[in-house]
């Protein structure tokens, strides 16, 4: 999505947050130095940090057509690795227990919840998130925009992804099939009417 920012000088919200957290960390470090950490404690802290990383392994994930390599703990979920390691922030963490659909990604052509999928089990598979979708007039994101398929927008990446996966399998869904296909996603604002219309419109646009 950030590729769409036209002004090269415009800072994204995420970059801003990252910048401010570095500033905060620097402040803490400076403070520690001022208080004066004794050498043994500093060494203990360093050892602890090393052991916290000792359980990591190297993985390569195929995300949106690119091979991305990173170090992760074996138990990391695909959602955590995408968001925190690979900076792919389209999938959202909401319920974190496989109920709401905000973290939906397309794994080997099938919509899955990335919050209950291990990253190590996703190696060698094709992972697609909404960052890779066509944002032009024929695409699913455009149909959501045209149909007010969102209010607060937090569930939207999941809905767009579930919709894309549905239309790739069934380019001509009935209203009932759209409802069944998207029933693993929840919108707390309740904008389902717009979402369903967006899915039907996107299906029409794809056919044209």
């Amino acid at each position, binding site marked *: 999505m950030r590729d769409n920012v036209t002004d090269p000088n415009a800072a994204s919200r995420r970059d801003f947050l990252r910048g401010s957290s570095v500033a905060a960390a620097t402040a803490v470090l400076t403070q520690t130095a001022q208080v004066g950490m004794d050498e043994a404690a500093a060494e203990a802290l360093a050892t602890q940090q090393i052991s916290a990383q000792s359980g990591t392994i190297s993985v390569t994930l195929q995300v949106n057509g690119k091979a991305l390599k990173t170090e992760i703990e074996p*138990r990391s*979920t695909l959602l955590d690795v995408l968001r*925190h390691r690979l900076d792919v922030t389209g999938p959202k963490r909401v319920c974190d227990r496989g109920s709401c659909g905000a973290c939906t990604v397309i794994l080997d052509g099938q919509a899955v919840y990335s919050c209950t999928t291990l990253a190590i089990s996703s190696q060698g598979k094709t992972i697609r998130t909404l960052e890779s979708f066509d944002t032009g007039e024929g695409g699913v994101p455009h149909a959501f925009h045209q149909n007010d398929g969102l209010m607060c927008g937090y569930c939207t990446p999941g809905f767009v992804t579930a919709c894309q996966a549905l239309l790739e399998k069934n380019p001509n869904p009935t209203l009932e099939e759209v409802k*069944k296909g998207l029933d693993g996603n929840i919108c707390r604002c309740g904008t389902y009417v717009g979402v369903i219309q967006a899915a039907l419109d996107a299906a029409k646009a794809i056919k044209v």
Partner: protein
Amino acid sequence: MSRTFADAKVHTPANLEEALDFLANHANEGWKPLAGGTDALVPIYRDGAEPTTPWLNLQKLRPELRFVRRTSNGFEIGALATISDLMANRDLCETYPIVRQCCQHFASPAIRHRATVAGNLANASPASDIAPVLLALEAEIESANHAGRRFVTLDAFWTGYKATVLAPDELIVSVRIPHRDLAANASMFRKVAPRASNSIALLNCAAIGTRDSAGTWTNVRIALGCMGPVPMRARKVESAVEDHRFDDTCREEAKALLQSTLRPITDYRATAEYRMLAATNLVSAFLDRTAGNWHS
């Protein structure tokens, strides 16, 4: 927000043989098989709880164990076949329409793409949606350890709430549906839940049988979930209606027998009274069926 589980162990064996050898050598270390992970991974990450279970990740066993096929004896469902794989198998779904009905009510598409049939059974929840269907079809579990394989019928598979006969060194290899119901002309799956998708059942019911033109039932099998610590067959009701017309006398008898069999509990999903009433109504509705309304 980023959580670290540096000590959390995950082992990913390359094939079934390696997995079984690993379990044989580490039988007392608490390793738990991880298939789809749609339920297993939830309590681990929820609310930042510390993970304690070491996982035996079965992902690489998919080439060996992900299949649904017809054999001369019945259908074989590999341990890593997903709920979507069941739905995609037209032969199975047309032979037993309750399989498709159940899968359509199973969670949501994203869960069905990951959740496995065997994992759903091994999880041993009384609220499993696929369990009553496989109970009604008299499925068997084929399991293996490093020394060999064994079969256990599904109704002997669960030993209590969230407990199975599987030993710590044992894995499910396949689930088998015998060719016992090919002549059945009536079947039903019903799930009572607050939402159509991603809901855990308050109760569920699967039933299959044959009703002749005179209205007499044969080979009736009825299974229910959430009506006790494990999914269960209503055997007393089955024998009471076998070779009988389902008339008013039979209905009252079946109702009394059903209520003496079931042991529902009251929890935050529903009261025991509600569950008993709904279960009785579902079973009666099935047995009342007449021509034109056989499979739904």
